[in-house]
């Protein structure tokens, strides 16, 4: 849509600007402030320059948390995206089944994140949980409190349970918007199921898939509540992701300086991915005439 040039539109944006400035810019400036200062308490601060950043970039703790988080995000994407596409392809297109599927599948997305944690904490317990109990009965040694592997599996399965529906819903929205004419043409050409998917459905889902990948990456990159409730970052530090580590540092130990430096580095990574997201979205928007 062609939009007219009008700088008075700024007045319409002003409320948003003021509100988000209050809840984003001021806090962010506080963080910048802390990241270059040190304190011995009593609110006396002195300038330390980039010391916290140097310390952070040399701290194995940060790199380990970052690595764990990247591995986690990679596993999540590798499982959720193909699974989501697969389920969306098999969803019913007409009739009452559509509503039933949409409503039931969206349900996990609307559960408070800590309740998601609680559900899986209970579900996986060997003594009272259905999953843990069943696994124990089958003779599998499963204990997410002590065994790092079990903790990882639990957190990953929980995230699949929680968020795969998002991928399904997005892909489904992309699939239903493909005009029937494409499929009729494919049928006349005698196209196989695979080539229909490869040459019609997949290209048409391009845009929603990109949204899905980026949203899932961002959300899994800042995951906090669910693993915190289930494993508390343990056993040891095995499931301590970036956010968990950051909150531990900022609120738990009140190491304001290092936590602020870490926040900024964290934020910069997010900013970078965000920019990719935005560029992709706007380019697609222009191509499709928006």
């Amino acid at each position, binding site marked *: *849509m062609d939009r*007219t*040039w*009008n*700088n008075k*539109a*700024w007045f*319409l*944006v002003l*409320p*948003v*600007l003021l*509100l*988000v400035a*209050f*809840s*984003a810019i*001021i*806090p962010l400036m*506080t963080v910048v402030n802390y990241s270059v200062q040190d304190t011995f308490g009593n609110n006396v601060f002195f300038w330390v320059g980039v010391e916290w950043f140097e310390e952070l970039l040399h701290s194995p703790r940060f790199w380990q948390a970052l690595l764990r988080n990247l591995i986690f995000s990679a596993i999540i994407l590798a499982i959720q995206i193909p699974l989501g596409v*697969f389920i969306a392809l*098999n969803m*019913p*297109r007409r009739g*009452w*089944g559509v509503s039933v599927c949409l*409503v*039931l*599948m*969206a*349900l996990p997305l*609307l*559960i*408070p994140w800590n*309740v998601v944690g*609680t*559900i899986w904490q*209970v*579900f996986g317990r060997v003594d*009272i949980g*259905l999953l843990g109990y069943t696994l124990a009965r089958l003779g599998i040694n499963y204990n997410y409190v002590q065994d790092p592997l079990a903790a990882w599996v639990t957190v990953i399965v929980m995230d699949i*349970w929680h968020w795969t529906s*998002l991928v399904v819903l997005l892909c489904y*929205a992309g699939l239903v918007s493909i005009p*029937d004419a494409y499929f009729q043409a494919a049928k006349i050409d005698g196209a196989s199921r695979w080539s229909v998917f490869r040459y019609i459905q997949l290209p048409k889902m391009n*845009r929603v898939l990109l949204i899905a990948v980026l*949203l899932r990456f*961002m959300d899994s990159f800042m995951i*906090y509540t669910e693993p915190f409730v289930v494993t508390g970052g343990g056993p040891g530090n095995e499931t301590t992701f*970036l*956010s968990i580590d950051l909150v531990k540092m900022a*609120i738990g130990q009140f190491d304001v300086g290092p*936590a602020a430096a870490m*926040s900024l580095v*964290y*934020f910069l990574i*997010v900013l970078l991915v*965000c920019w990719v*997201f*935005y560029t992709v979205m706007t380019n697609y928007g222009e191509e499709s005439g928006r």
Partner: protein
Amino acid sequence: MTDDASRSTVIRADATTSAPTVATRTSRLRRAGRNGPRTSWLVPTLYIIFLMLPIYWLVNMSFKTNVEITSSFTLWPRTFTLRNYAVIFTDPSWYNGYINSIIYVVLNTVISVAVALPAAYAFSRYRFLGDKHLFFWLLTNRMAPPAVFVLPFFQLYSAFGLIDTHIAVALAHCLFNVPLAVWILEGFMSGVPKEIDETAYIDGYSFPRFFVRIFVPLIASGIGVAAFFCFMFSWVELLIARTLTTTDAKPISAIMTRTVSASGLDWGVLAAAGVLTIIPGALVIYFVRNYIAKGFALGRV
């Protein structure tokens, strides 16, 4: 258990395959051609079973006595009890959590949608200095990890004396909800032809009158969807809400976590509290089912 599951699968399957009537025969043929073998019902069914099992387990536990939960392993409550729910509805420290949550979530939804409406209109209709940068900056706030903002929020709101008030949480949640509302509304508004605006202006409508009388009714469904998503993201967030409150405005989800660590044993009440937090989302989900993908994709599908 597996027997039960497969039996219900079979029942579902029958219902799905026998549902189409003669009238939809052509579409059936077309669908068969598109979806290949008729086993496609199996995948969503298995997936939904996977989704429902943990929720079922929570509901199941909420109707059990603690003795039954800890001492025996039962697939459904043998001694059905409503005690767990009674505990929550009679103890103010529990049910106040729900009231607190609802107050700040509603406050946040109203604020977010109110300020996002004019902004989204500006983004969808006009170009102005720095519009793209502004739009991008809004997006970064939606994507920002809440953990980054926890400490500065705490200090900012302490400085204003707002700690442990509902408005503090409502304002803090604007961080990610205002951008979300702007993006969703912009998506819906771009679908309304510009000619409508122009015709209204020619007819002598002033901007505020046009906006309230004509434009807002046109995008009513968009406002509903935006409000739903603001409500939802504010409802599911815990980290910021927990940090900014101590007692008077503590959300239900924070009260839950506290109970786990303190007594650690009252599983029944914990499960009941969890079930009660799922209900609001489950109730409204039906109304937005067709827009839910659009909402999660920030209005971009």
